[in-house]
């Protein structure tokens, strides 16, 4: 029973941590909380579904396809919607990003209807150990999240492109003076983040269900994890995701599970009020 809580929290964290890192990265470059990530995740889930079920591709191939499709969609959204509106205030962009999520969700609903779907994978009995259960898919999700986290760490810390991404997020003008092509780096960041959101869509389809609202339901936990860990700090996002997963599982013990989404909001509110820079972020210097 108790171990099960930790297993569930771990799976939750593995689902939330990669998009929270991507959200943090995107926030660094674009400077507003992008609610469109919900739509991006939904697109990822349904792209993978299309490759996997109607087209009959094996799931690993379908996943790569979904990551490519989502990366492309996110890049397109950047070029057509967000880039031309750069001069608008953060709040206006936030409203636009919610509108974009609604549009993407509705496009998916238009083609696939609101039915609940699943991938074409054999049903297997979950593994049991010390009274806790875990499915094969959940183990895969955790493994992928660990690999992805490590990969992102190596990319950001030890490659030229990663350094450029951090430089642009930190101070685009200084980066430009030092010869970094900010526009190109921003575009690369959006594509990278898009691929991660696509992967999250696949994970969500494996662990939860595939439906148009799947992305929206993950949006608040992702925001909560990113804010908890300190926005702009991709590593904090991992710890934030773990703590959030644990908090959500513990709430279910005392409150009806429908209140689960409220936990994310309450954590966001408390952290923003008490420690706005999150666990690991550095305090912003206000003018």
């Amino acid at each position, binding site marked *: 029973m108790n171990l099960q809580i930790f297993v569930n929290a771990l799976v939750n964290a593995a689902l939330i941590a990669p998009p929270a890192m991507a959200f943090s990265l995107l926030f660094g470059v674009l400077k507003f909380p992008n609610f469109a990530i919900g739509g991006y995740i939904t697109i990822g889930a349904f792209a993978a579904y299309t490759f996997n079920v109607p087209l009959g591709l094996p799931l690993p191939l379908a996943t790569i396809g979904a990551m490519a499709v989502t990366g492309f969609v996110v890049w397109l959204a950047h070029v057509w919607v967000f880039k031309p509106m750069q001069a608008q205030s953060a709040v206006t962009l936030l409203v636009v990003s*919610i509108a974009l999520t*609604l549009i993407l969700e509705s496009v998916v609903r238009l083609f696939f209807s609101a039915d609940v779907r699943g991938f074409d994978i054999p049903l297997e009995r979950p593994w049991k150990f010390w009274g806790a259960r875990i499915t094969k898919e959940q183990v895969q999700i955790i493994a992928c999240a660990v690999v992805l986290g490590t990969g992102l760490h190596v990319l950001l810390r030890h490659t030229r492109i990663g350094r450029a991404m951090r430089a642009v997020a930190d101070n685009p003008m200084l980066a430009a003076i030092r010869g970094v092509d900010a526009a190109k780096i921003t575009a690369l960041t959006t594509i990278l983040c898009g691929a991660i959101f696509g992967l999250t869509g696949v994970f969500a389809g494996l662990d939860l269900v595939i439906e148009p609202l799947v992305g929206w339901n993950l949006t608040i936990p992702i925001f909560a994890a990113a804010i908890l860990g300190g926005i702009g700090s991709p590593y904090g996002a991992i710890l934030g995701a773990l703590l959030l997963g644990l908090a959500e599982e513990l709430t279910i013990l005392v409150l009806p599970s429908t209140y689960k989404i409220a936990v994310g909001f309450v954590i966001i509110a408390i952290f*923003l009020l008490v420690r706005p820079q999150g666990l690991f972020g550095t305090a912003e210097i206000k003018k």
Partner: protein
Amino acid sequence: MSAYLVSMATYAGFFMILALALNLQWGLTGMVNFGIAGFYALGAYTSGLLSAKAGWPLGLSIPMAIAAGFAAGGLVALLSMRLREDFLAIVTLGVGEVIRLIVLNEDQITEGPRGLRIEAQPFQSLVEPENYPLFYLCFVAVFVAITYWICERIRKAPMGRTLRAIREDDVVAGVLGKNVFRHRVQIFAIGGGFMGLAGALYAHYTQNISPEVFMPTVAMFIWMSVIVGGAGNNRGLLIGAGTVIMFLEGTRFIGDILPWLDAEIMSSVRIITIGLLLIVTLRLRPRGLLPEPKFSYTKR
């Protein structure tokens, strides 16, 4: 058909009150509120529960709805003291969602997803049932006019100048000796009160309220109304709210003309059109259809 237009106009009235309230908070003072659906729900359930379950007359329950929105607005404003505007957006969205979740889960009081049935309607006994929808439209229109008048008064008064100063730079306004904190709490509370009023009017119009009406999408539509109409301009956002309702409800007519399209497809197309409306407006007219007029000392 004409009954349909009347109901559409009534809904536009609710949206206009909500949009005017949001414009007070954001367009004029620069405080973000994404919890509109929560305030709307609070007003609807306060008046609905008081009249349906406690048997209060509407003359008392509707003012109570306004008071509830006012109090909640004042409380949320306290958050805005510490938060950056984009974070405040997430927190207020959370406030709205938590209100909806409470309504959904505490169903022994609110009837939850089953929906709360409200019999009482204002001046029910004085108006013929077949004329009642038209009467209610006028009733709502009166409240829209009152709200508009109050908002315009605030905007043109010396207080409006202070509020715009706070919006542009709260530090400068503070240095000039304006009580930024008090103004913010006041305006957020007044806005919340108007939103509560809109909720109460809605509750006694449909006579059946349930939590799924108060999804965050409501907040979205009001934000679109304000942004499309032109933030800071009360006349512009009346047009904005009208436009959004027209796209939202008017597209139902297409369903009557092309009956082979099913409801699922129609609702998707509706949301897509309205989202594109926002994006296209912002691309072509970045400050909305009727932008806020530049302030001038020489003419009013």
